[in-house]
């Protein structure tokens, strides 16, 4: 126990890590509060990982179980990989939030409740016969009862606000309290409120006052005897920011555009959880980004293909149901052999499914969901910040090979956030050569332009954009004759073209670095193979297993199609292969078919990421 001088007269305890979950009504501002607390923790220098969890309804009926919105944050003085399996601290803004989230809190955990909302009516609404704050059901937890609502209203007396408006600031009161409890910096939050509500000075003043009052309450109340310090983490040197997956993905696309010299054109139709990419890109017109909110998913991808044909970096962003609608147009892009990036931010399916929950079940859709032999490369990010690099890689492949590319993110990555070491612009891949347009000089011996004459190395075809004199040509979705691109129904030609398109995509493997397994002492007999957002939980689980004496290797795929060139050889090095996926075994199906490896799956589709503890147990049963 250490006392920090000047911070508070109370005791200060040092912790290595904390998992905190803030839960309330979907209109209570829980996501904003969580975001802000994350930002402050990141600025403080902690490693952070977050898991927002909110309903699909914008404002579900107040105080009901389906209306609960939660935000989980894991912050630590060392590098962490997941938002944490279980919260150490739960902040419950009402009975519904307590009822939904208490089962996740281990006994001994801390629960901070807003007592004002525990009225008979509110309790009855969620099926509590008795008040859980009084009936002993919270025995075994460290409970802090705070009248958050009424204290906020009292703190805002004298502000020109209605009672209802004053009540709305209770999330800032709670944030102030948490900021005191965990020694978070306060200046940034005060500045943030200034910016966020700049148009309404009265609201700025009220939120600042509520935040300050919450902070002061922590300092003076006897309810909290100690506060906690989580020291900054020793991350690799560099300049950092906190970033969400969707924003990182948008920045990756802008960087791909800037580094290739091609204007970015986004065709998109709003869909959860992908819309934030559209929102983000729409802000960056100074970078020449054109965003087109189309009439439907089909028009969105169609416009991106049209823009690509015109020499732009064509991109479309969507989720699984949107991919279903875009399938025919993606097939057209395969046939036209034009660059196109299709970002699928996966969510629970089938059909409308679970719009705000995460899943990895679109892999086979991306792989095979088109008519005919229609190969499309697939890349997947492994963490929120990694969405940046994955997006740039998707752009590289699309441009170099003149092909549509799937970027498979998911809801967990999209909304989750983590610290990101900000790259220097000069260290980003230079994509100018990949984006080179065809010129008349490229065809000195031919009187006519040959739109399907391929680069011998990449098998990519020339990209001749309208406006280039001498390269006028016609292309389409009908099968084309090799080299000339004229319509051809010739059997041999079709067979040749189908194989050539497949070979082009397979050949991308030559440009992919070999996959390396994380196998610290080289003694593991079990390989855990993952892809996408399971990286954090799988890696954390492997660390747990190793701490407990087990030997396990972990490899994580960035490229799902084609696979890295050494994947078969890597798999053969291990006796057993375990593939955890948030689907019923889609990667396992591909790996088993391709390499004849008896890989086994660990599969769950609960709309939530795996916990590292459950994966560790699973790994240990297979060691």
């Amino acid at each position, binding site marked *: 126990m250490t006392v920090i001088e000047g911070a508070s007269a109370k005791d200060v305890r040092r912790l290595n890590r904390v998992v905190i979950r803030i839960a309330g009504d979907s209109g209570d501002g829980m996501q904003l509060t969580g975001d802000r607390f994350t930002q402050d923790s990141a600025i403080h220098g902690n490693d952070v990982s977050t898991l927002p969890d909110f309903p699909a309804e914008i404002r579900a009926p107040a105080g009901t179980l389906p209306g609960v919105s939660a935000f989980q944050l894991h912050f630590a003085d060392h590098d962490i990989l997941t938002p944490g399996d279980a919260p150490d601290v739960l902040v419950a803004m009402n009975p519904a939030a307590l009822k939904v989230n208490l089962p996740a809190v281990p006994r001994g955990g801390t629960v901070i409740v807003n007592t004002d909302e525990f009225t008979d009516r509110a309790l009855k609404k969620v099926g509590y016969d008795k008040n859980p704050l009084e009936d002993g059901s919270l025995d075994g937890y460290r409970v802090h009862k705070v009248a958050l609502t009424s204290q906020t209203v009292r703190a805002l007396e004298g502000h020109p606000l209605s009672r209802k408006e004053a009540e709305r600031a209770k999330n800032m009161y709670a944030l102030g309290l948490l900021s005191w409890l965990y020694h978070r910096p306060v200046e940034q939050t005060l500045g943030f409120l200034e910016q966020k509500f700049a148009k309404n000075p009265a609201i700025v003043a009220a939120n600042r006052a509520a935040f300050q009052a919450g902070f002061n309450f922590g300092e003076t109340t006897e309810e909290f005897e100690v506060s906690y310090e989580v020291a*900054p983490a020793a991350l690799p040197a560099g300049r950092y920011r906190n970033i969400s997956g969707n924003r990182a993905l948008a920045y990756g696309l802008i960087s791909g555009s800037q580094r290739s010299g091609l204007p970015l054109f986004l065709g998109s139709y709003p869909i959860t959880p992908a819309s934030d990419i559209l929102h983000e890109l729409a802000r960056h017109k100074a970078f020449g980004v054109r965003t087109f909110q189309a009439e439907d998913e089909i028009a969105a991808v*169609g*416009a991106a293909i049209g823009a690509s044909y*015109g020499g732009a970096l064509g991109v479309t962003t969507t989720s699984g149901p949107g991919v279903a609608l875009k399938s025919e147009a993606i097939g057209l892009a395969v046939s036209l052999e034009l660059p196109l990036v299709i970002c699928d931010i996966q969510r629970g399916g089938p059909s409308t499914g679970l719009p705000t929950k995460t899943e990895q079940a679109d892999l086979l859709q991306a792989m095979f969901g088109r008519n005919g032999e229609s190969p499309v490369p697939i890349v997947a990010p492994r963490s929120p910040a990694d969405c940046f690099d994955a997006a740039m890689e998707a752009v590289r492949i699309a441009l170099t090979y003149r092909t549509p590319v799937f970027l498979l993110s998911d809801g967990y990555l999209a909304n989750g956030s983590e610290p990101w070491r900000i790259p220097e612009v000069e260290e980003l891949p230079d994509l100018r050569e990949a984006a080179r347009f065809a010129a008349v000089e490229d065809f000195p011996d031919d009187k006519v332009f040959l739109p399907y004459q391929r680069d011998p190395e990449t098998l990519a075809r020339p990209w001749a954009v309208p406006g280039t004199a001498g390269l006028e040509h016609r292309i389409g979705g009908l099968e084309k004759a090799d080299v000339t691109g004229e319509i051809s129904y010739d059997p041999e030609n079709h067979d040749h073209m189908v194989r050539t398109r497949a070979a082009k995509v397979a050949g991308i493997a030559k440009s992919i670095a070999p996959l390396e397994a994380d196998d610290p002492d080289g003694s593991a007999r079990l390989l855990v193979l993952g892809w996408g957002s399971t990286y954090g939980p799988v890696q954390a689980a492997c660390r747990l297993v190793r701490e407990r004496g087990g030997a396990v290797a972990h490899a994580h795929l960035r490229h799902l199609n084609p696979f890295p060139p050494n994947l078969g050889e890597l798999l053969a090095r291990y006796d057993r292969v375990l593939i955890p996926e948030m689907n019923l075994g889609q990667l396992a199906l591909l790996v088993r078919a391709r390499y004849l490896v008896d890989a086994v799956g660990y599969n769950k589709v609960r709309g939530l990421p795996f916990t590292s503890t459950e994966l560790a147990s699973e790994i240990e049963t297979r060691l």
Partner: protein
Amino acid sequence: MLDVTVSAGAPSAKDFKSDQEVRWCPGCGDYAVLAAVQSFLPSLNLDREKIVFVSGIGCSSRFPYYLNTYGMHSIHGRAPAIATGLAAARPDLSVWVVTGDGDALSIGGNHLIHALRRNVNLKILLFNNRIYGLTKGQYSPTSEPGKVTKSTPYGSLDAPFNPVSLALGAEATFVARTIDSDRKHLTSVLTAAAQHPGTALVEIYQNCNIFNDNAFEHLKAPGERDRHLLRLEPDAPLVYGEHKVVWDGERRGLGVTDLTDPRPAVTHDVAAEDPAYAFALARLQDPATLSPTPIGVFRSVRRPVYDDLMTDQLSAAGHGSKEPDLGALLAGSDTWTVGGGS
């Protein structure tokens, strides 16, 4: 608006013919339209490489293959969407869409109406033969009620679309109709469409001599056509054969009456701001008999063009005038530094 660049040496129709063998059925109305377009394109005074034809699927959608410009034969119904992306990304191009009644009004209806309301700089040529040709003779969304086809042996139950009134309802700024066999009229309408800034929709009645032969014969036969064709000329009275179009107070719209009626013929106003007039004009036509059939430009009004507006927004944000700072974007405002020198 067209970005006019004068070519070295006056181009001719021949310059716009591609080396591909034309493969429509002998006698198809598409040949006449192709020939008219090939002769018309030189009058645009545009370099060939600045012109792009985008089509969907159907007989008419083979059109781009036969023009020596840039071209894309895309997928069923989606040409307006693809062309929208192209036009928005490349406002320097002259982008044309070739589509048919099935392509534009059935499978692609959504894209058509949204292109029209946005007023993207596209010229849409809708070949209407009132039948599905490429799939061998099913009724289309413009077929007359009761049409007997392979898929409707007891007669079609569908009420047809009137493409002109549909386009007007979709906020179109330019709508016209013409006929495949009337080269002069077709060319004049294409010229007006090309000069229009924004989306122009041109419905072209086109004969399918295999599956719906003579669908427009009464609008073409010299002895008969004047009884049905209402030729729309700017600021000219609406008169055809023994008839004229008058303001009908009772119907609160336009009505047809014979020339002896004392009421004055309505004077055609292509620039009428309110689309109700053009709509009333379009609705004079009986969907079963196509009589009377107004041809010419129904409506031509100015409204800001989508791709211009998009370019303006980019310019206002500083695109093109100052170098954007990618490093500053990636860093954002809330950063912290770890280590340093280590």
